[in-house]
């Protein structure tokens, strides 16, 4: 409106004279800022993305020009490499913090220069400069634990620490294992070699054998040559070896009050026993796992206590009805034990027995049979 008014005024004033003229509006410079990255420390090899904020009075499109330099503190131009590590022309500027400067020395700072111009070429003044302090990256550390034996006391647990250090290299990192035991219990810890998963990571392994129950912790610390350390804690709940459980039985166990008729020689068996350490069927190739022990006993037609069948130590027993009179009721019983040989304290008259929790884990089962 001012222009129009000026034009009208000029034209109105000069109307007696010949012709009119106009003046182009004045293009103003854009202003630029660089959004600060987060306040978190910046490490060598970090990936950063910076964003430019522009304000142009005429609302024109702004062209950007970024340059990032690896430097030492205080990141003045004289402290930086001559050539930028990377440049950019978009509003956002992604780049990786270099581990080394051009001369091979560690990067201690970054200098980021930003220039901008509008559509008519007006450039921003002053150009924003961002200086970032770059820190030595501590090692990255991932840990895990595995146990084939349900973390039973006295059995080995395998511990793993996978490390990498992008600025110092994985081979420069050392790993220590610090064990905290419940009640001063003893332990063994032996390191072993583990194949590396790739060229960047190195995996350390340790075979840890606790000799006491309770909560154990293992602090795994990875340290680089400059003393920067990362620690991860592994917690293990170590328990006693639990009693074994009869997992499968054949033939069917009759419900209370019922009898299983035997019309022919019958193989009674416990095909599956589950336990922390002593199972059935046996596991091949395991130096720790053992085999459950079986004890078979019979109560004859005349009643009385269940008498162990001498020598019957396998997981099965054959009962032949021809050894009895038709109609004879015979109880067939199997009991299982692991290496702890815990005595079953249940009365002989109890068909089942459990010395463990939950009580559905049985160490004794009895078939009440009738000879047919």
């Amino acid at each position, binding site marked *: 409106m001012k222009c129009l008014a000026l034009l009208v005024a000029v034209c109105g004033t000069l109307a007696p004279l010949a012709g009119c003229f106009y003046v182009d509006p004045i293009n103003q410079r854009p202003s630029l800022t660089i959004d600060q990255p987060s306040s978190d420390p910046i490490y060598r090899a970090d990936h950063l993305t910076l964003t430019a904020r522009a304000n142009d009075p005429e609302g024109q499109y702004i062209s950007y020009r970024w340059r990032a330099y690896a430097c030492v503190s205080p990141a003045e131009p004289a402290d930086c490499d001559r050539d930028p590590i990377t440049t950019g022309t978009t509003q956002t500027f992604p780049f990786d913090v270099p581990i080394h400067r051009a001369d091979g020395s560690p990067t201690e700072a970054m200098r980021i220069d930003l220039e901008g111009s509008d559509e008519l070429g007006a450039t921003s003044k002053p150009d924003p400069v961002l200086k970032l302090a770059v820190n030595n990256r501590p090692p990255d550390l991932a840990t895990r634990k595995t146990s084939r034996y349900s973390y039973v006391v006295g059995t080995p647990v395998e511990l793993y620490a996978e490390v990498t250090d992008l600025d110092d290299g994985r081979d420069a990192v050392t790993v220590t294992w610090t064990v905290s035991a419940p009640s001063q219990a003893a332990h063994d810890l032996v390191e072993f070699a583990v194949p590396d998963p790739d060229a960047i990571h190195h995996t350390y392994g340790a075979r840890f054998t606790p000799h006491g129950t309770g909560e154990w912790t293992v602090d795994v610390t990875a340290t680089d040559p400059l003393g920067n350390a990362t620690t991860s804690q592994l917690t293990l709940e170590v328990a006693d070896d639990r009693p074994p459980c009869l*997992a499968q039985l054949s033939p069917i166990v009759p419900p209370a009050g*019922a009898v299983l008729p035997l019309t022919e020689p*019958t193989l009674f068996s416990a095909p599956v026993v589950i336990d922390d350490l002593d199972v059935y069927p046996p596991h091949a190739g395991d130096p720790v796992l053992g085999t459950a022990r079986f004890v078979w006993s019979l109560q004859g037609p005349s009643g009385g206590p269940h008498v162990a069948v*001498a020598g019957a130590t396998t997981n099965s027993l054959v009962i032949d009805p021809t*050894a009895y*009179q*038709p109609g004879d009721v015979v109880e067939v019983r199997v009991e299982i034990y692991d290496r702890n040989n815990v005595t079953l304290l249940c009365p002989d008259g109890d068909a089942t027995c459990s010395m463990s929790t939950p009580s559905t884990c049985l160490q004794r089962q009895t078939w009440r049979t009738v000879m047919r």
Partner: protein
Amino acid sequence: MSRAVFALVLAAMASACGAEGPPGPQCDVGITFSPADAITGVQVRATAVVTNGVGVLDYDWQVRHAGADVAFTSAQTSSSQAIVFTPAEAGTYDVRVSIVGASCPDASSTLNVMDDNPHGLSVRLHVTPPPDLDVPPLDKRLSISGGGDVDISPVTLERGVRASGSVVSAGAGVSAYLRLVPAGMPDAPVETFSDATGAFSARVLDAPHDVLVIPTDETLAPQIFAGWNPGDPPLELATGQTVSGTVRDSANIGVANAKVQLVIGGVPSAIGTTTATGAFTLHAASPPGADVTVTVTPPAATGLPRLVATNTFAVNQALTVRYASFPIRNLGGVHVRRGGVAQPGARVSLVGEVASEGTITDGSLTSQATAVIRATIIADGAGALPPTAMPGLTVTAVVAVSPSDLAVSSPIALGTAVPADIVVPAMSSFTSRAQAFVTGVAIPGVTLELLPIGDLAAAGAPTLRFTGDATGQITGLLPTGGHYDARWSDAEAIGAPFVDPDVSAQTIASMYVLPKPLFVTGTLSVPGNPNPVPRAAVQILPRTMCTGVACDRPIAEAATDDLGTFSLAVPDPGTR
């Protein structure tokens, strides 16, 4: 245009346009076979696969081989979409299905059936799922070719159906034992019990079953219900055939309180007990023409042996059981000695089977009966047997001098006289070892199981188990005169399981070479269940050359791990 022409045009347009719009996708039918590589004697399942079939469909099947129809049964109780049949011969089998209830074309497919691999290992794969999975067991034939390990994944456990029913007799519920045997999988029965109301429930295959019902009440006749389907009406126990007869000794005097039981067509009868005059009555299910096994067990005090005979007796006729003439001996005062020394407290099992020591007849058919002797006596503190009546027949004494000290006597001819002593030899030592075929090296920790056979089995002797030392050597004691089947196994699977039948302490080999193992691996799965199946029992059992409980003893067994996988080592049958 005239009205008539106009009407014609309209009609033509209407017929051309139709009333139902454009036609839908065409129905397509195919047939799949499981297993695709069929072999003789192995059940095949044919399933009709219908796409774009609309409505409730029914299926009409036909199976033909060599110009003749092949019998089949429905694989499912709720649908005829799948059938099962067992090819008896090698060759091509033409399977055709017609879809009823939809406009679908017929489908046909040819199945090539091969002979069972004569050089392979023919076994059964038996899987018992963990109880909490609630699916029925699996038993299927497996033919293992040699030369390399084999993965038989996936091993699919069918979900089955929850079958509920009841057992009744004269309108009242009956408590009973039930064995439900699925059609096409006779070695995977499901067992259950009915309660006092007769109600029972079990997870079974969705297929017809033969159900054996043995009532708890011994006066009720057990019965087989063929072709029972889940959801069928209650199992009504019939009174059965009344079977009567007498049991008499050689002097034609009735034998009182003898237990009489029949097994007819594999189904046991109720148990009858003879009266003072030797008469008995019992009830039995009696399919016509079936083999009848009659077993008579007199009271031990009579000294008479059990008598057993089998024939196609007419059970609607009175059965007469007659003992042959032999003396009844009293073993009181007979000493058990070893090396001339009496053995106090020795447990003596007298066993024997003697043919033709009686007859059983229905008036028309007469069979010689076998005398079966089973008696257990405990020697007193002086090593002498208490007064005990025994048949004057030839028996063998299996003597447990102590729980770990067994002995087998020479045959004792009680028909001749009562010996003063039962002489039992000392146990005999043996040494044996196992080495692996592949490495030729001894197998440390190898396991030797000795399964009693013959007199030892008759006496109920247990299986003995030995573990080899670091050199694979086993040293132990065995009852002299005792016979076993020797079963070697190696938990490390360096050598495959090996059986040497009928060995004794004197004949067991000093060295066994365990065959090269072949690993059979697999993963269990249940349709519609993405979870693994841990803790299932997986067994490889013999399919041929075994009888009785020997067919139930695994060649190899394992439990599935947390991922539902298993690995079993069996003897490599080799390649030829």
